[in-house]
């Protein structure tokens, strides 16, 4: 006999709204005579805006911490992630609207519903308290992203979609195997059990099999490491970033990392908290490999999208660095880093989209030669984003790096911080090289920049945010501090 859980839907209203308007968008796409980006965008915004409002309403939630049969957690941690993810979705939709207007033949209205579905999966995964829900949310976001990757149907996009799909399905099978092992070890898939003991209680009480638990931990790491593109599970990242349409990459690069990391934090820092001494070395190793691989291989890249992909691998390593400190300092540092990284990624790919004009032809470094002469505004914005990625003050990236390193050092992992700092020096080379191209090279012939206004405004706002956060990080840390305490 399955007990009927008390139904409290308010905590998942954001996801309900997103899915509802995703369906509305699909219906519009199906029945509209000539699909038009503007109504699509309007529908998406109508979904995203109220979702944000309902998410905000959860900030001061006074009801139970776990609802819907303990499958969904209600905490400020998930509110923060929802805000970042909804923001990323909004910017992604804006970008795509412009992207499509440049090449109306390639417009696919499915972008908006798929983005909303992916966002719903992402927000749900950060709030999920049940490995089943996490798996379902993971599949929801992954399947949507596979399709989004190939949405233009071009050769490169279809290749990227194929690679992303095969590898994603492969790694999520590992993840699922891990979930099954965790279930076997704990007799529950709940991370924190209220009605019945969850994983954390079972592990803390050592009621289940320790071997199964460790196996579960190792396999769950694989699944998350793939999603956050940590080396050696990163191989898909450069190809997918390069092949997928830029607005998709902007959304995906920013949001997937946020969602996967928030879920990872909840699963490991809460659910597998009794195994902290077992999983921190694994995270440590992943961090080192990711930082080194991302920073070093990026040097050899000439395609800006690939370069940013390797940069995202290195950044995954930096965030993992913060997470080697399995405490609220480490979580807070990782959260700050993720927010800063999401903002920068959205902005940087916005500029990439504007520079690459129609199609996806001009993404090589040569297209950036003399950009400062052709469009000084774009060059200046790109400079801000690159400096933030490189962790140079006064940008948020600098503060983010400092906080993750100090968290790692606080946990005694100073060799990791040393690796991080050295890698940052290496990384500065390729970030600055792009700036050198933009400001000190002669512009190439026959390259025209896109003069889209809306993406420019969006990127400008994001750049301003980066600088403001770099100078007044307290604005964000004040919000993150009460949100970085996830515990059972």
């Amino acid at each position, binding site marked *: 006999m399955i007990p009927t859980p008390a139904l409290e839907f308010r905590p998942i209203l954001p996801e309900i709204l997103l899915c509802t308007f995703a369906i509305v968008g699909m219906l519009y796409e199906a029945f509209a005579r000539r699909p038009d980006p503007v109504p699509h965008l309007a529908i998406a915004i109508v979904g995203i805006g109220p979702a944000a409002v309902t998410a905000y309403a959860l900030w001061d939630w006074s009801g139970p911490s776990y609802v819907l049969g303990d499958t969904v957690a209600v905490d400020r941690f998930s509110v923060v992630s929802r805000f970042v993810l909804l923001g990323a979705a909004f910017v992604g939709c804006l970008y795509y609207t412009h992207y499509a207007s440049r090449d109306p033949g390639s417009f696919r209205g499915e972008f908006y519903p798929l983005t909303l579905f992916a966002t719903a999966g992402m927000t749900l995964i950060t709030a999920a308290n049940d490995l089943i829900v996490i798996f379902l949310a993971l599949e929801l976001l992954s399947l949507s992203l596979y399709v989004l990757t190939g949405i233009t149907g071009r050769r490169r996009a279809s290749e990227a979609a*194929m690679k992303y799909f095969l*590898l994603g399905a492969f790694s999520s099978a590992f993840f699922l195997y891990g979930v099954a092992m965790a279930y076997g070890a704990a007799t529950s898939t709940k991370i924190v059990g209220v009605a019945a003991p969850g994983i954390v209680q079972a592990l803390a009480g050592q009621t289940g099999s320790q071997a199964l638990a460790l196996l579960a931990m*190792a*396999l769950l790491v694989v699944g998350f490491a793939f999603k956050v593109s940590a080396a050696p599970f990163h191989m898909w990242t450069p*190809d997918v970033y390069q092949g997928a349409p830029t607005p998709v990459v902007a959304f995906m690069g920013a949001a997937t990392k946020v969602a996967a990391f928030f879920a990872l934090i909840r699963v490991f820092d809460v659910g597998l908290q009794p195994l902290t001494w077992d999983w921190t070395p694994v995270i440590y190793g992943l961090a080192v490999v990711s930082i080194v691989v991302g920073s070093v*291989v990026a*040097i050899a890249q000439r395609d800006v999208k690939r370069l940013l992909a390797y940069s995202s691998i290195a950044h995954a390593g930096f965030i993992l660095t913060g997470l080697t400190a399995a405490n609220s300092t480490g979580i807070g540092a990782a959260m700050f880093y993720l927010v800063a990284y999401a903002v920068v990624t959205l902005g940087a790919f916005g500029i990439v989209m504007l520079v690459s004009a129609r199609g996806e032809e001009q993404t090589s470094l040569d297209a950036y030669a003399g950009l400062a002469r052709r469009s000084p505004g774009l060059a200046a914005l790109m400079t801000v984003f690159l400096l933030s990625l490189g962790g140079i003050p006064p940008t948020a990236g600098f503060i983010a790096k400092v906080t993750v390193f100090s968290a790692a050092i606080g946990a005694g992992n100073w060799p990791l911080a040393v690796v991080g700092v050295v890698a940052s020096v290496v990384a500065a080379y390729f970030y600055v090289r792009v700036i050198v191209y933009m400001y000190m090279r002669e512009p190439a012939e026959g390259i025209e920049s896109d003069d889209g206004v809306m993406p420019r405004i969006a990127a400008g706002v994001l750049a301003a945010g980066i600088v403001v956060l770099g100078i007044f990080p307290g604005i964000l840390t004040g919000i993150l501090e009460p949100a970085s305490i996830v515990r059972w």
Partner: protein
Amino acid sequence: MGTDLRLDSVSATMILVITGIGALIHVYAIGYMAGDPRYGRFFSYMNLFVFFMLMLVLGANYLVLYLGWEGVGLCSYLLIGFWSDVPANAEAAKKAFITTRIGDTLMLVGLALIVFRFGTLDFEAVFGAAGTVLTKDAATAIALLLFAGAIGKSAQVPLHVWLPDAMAGPTPVSALIHAATMVTAGVYLVVRSHVLFELSGVALTVVLVVGVVTAVFAATCAVAQQDIKRVLAYSTISQLGFMFMAAGMRAYGVAMFFLVAHAFYKALLFLGAGSVIHGMHDEQDLRRMGGLRRLLPITFATFLVGALAQAGIPPLAGFFAKDAVLEVAQHTGRAAVYALGSIAAFLSAFYLGRVLFLTFFGEPRSDRARDAHEAPPVLWVPLAVLAVGAATAGWLTLTPEGRLTGFLEGITGPTPAGQGVAVAALAAVATVISLVALASTWWIYGSGRVDWVGFRERLEPLPRAALNGWYVDRAYDTALVQPAKAGAWITAYVLDARIIDGAVNAIGGGVKLLADGGRHLQTGFVRSYALAVFLGAVTILVYVGVRS
């Protein structure tokens, strides 16, 4: 504490000197700098200087004082190098800036010590609490560090080397900054901080010794200079030594009086020299002058007043000022100071007599001297006004208790009194010394009975050594500058360029190779990517298995 200002008798005296003499020099500069392509820039620098100088003397705490202190240093640098298209001028500006920085840095350390000890830089607070807060040693340390700043700024031995070279600047600059105001900031600092110096005692002795040594040393250099402005530069150094001498004997009021009097006659002498240089089409060498009193009568008259004033002929200002210092020395039983001061006074009368006779008397010794022309009114009117000042400034302290020293007494304390030879007798001796010096210069340079060029040659190598400032510059160059340059060369071209850059380049190259290798791991085949995922998973599983 903040940007508090403070006006008391000492700062009021300084303000009157800065603005009064500054105004005259500005008027003079209107004529002197006419036609210069950077006319506007010159005056903006000058006014910036006046601003900072006023900040310096008006600050109610050491912070504002230091702001002004560095500000005038900057303006001095900018104005010495004003004609920077001549490399030597730029060099001189650099030298002035760097040399004074040595003192400034020590002074900053002193200020830090004050903050450390008192928790404030406010004059009232520091001086009020000094007696209870500071030990004798701490007071000595702070006072000496502050005095190091004064040594640099006021060009005292051993940091005096920049001032003669600073004559590369336009003459109004020399008159305003390097004679009347900025270089006296060190005296102001000592007078202002006298509480700290007195608490130490040792520091006052150091001030006195530095003052005496500088006064004599610089005077010997001045005697042998061939450039009219360099004579005046060494003269200024020597006269600043007199001021420190007075301060070192706790006669702060006398030091301030000397400062005021000196400001008048030294500004007058510089501007007069400028008028001569102007009239001789930028000729500064004494050997090519001569007989100018007929061609430049007004300049001659005013210059004469200035020279006699400094030489110490009563009743001109310098007589009273110098006399007051020597009187304090004699009356407080410092016979050596009195003797050395008198020697310096003799020398100062001697070198001014030499300048006077070589410039204005005898026969013209060059075509330029024959074609010299009198200055326009815009130049000579300030000269005339200054001449009146130089002649009458002595009245400021004519009464027995001294008007100016009495006015300053609230801040500086009373002038130390003692027993000794009667004032009148001292004055008579001093006057005789001056007259003898002037008479001997007349005999050597003015009478025509002595072959002064041959006379100089017979005395070699003394004149050459004195001309070169007794080779202090060369000694510094050998002992400090060249080793530092060699060290810098080694750091730059061996340590940095070879070893550090080499290592960095090697690492960079290595990383690039690594990047190229790593790049080719990304084969593009999805199956090899899946293999990486699989191997990664296996690695983690093995690690976890081995660990447990």
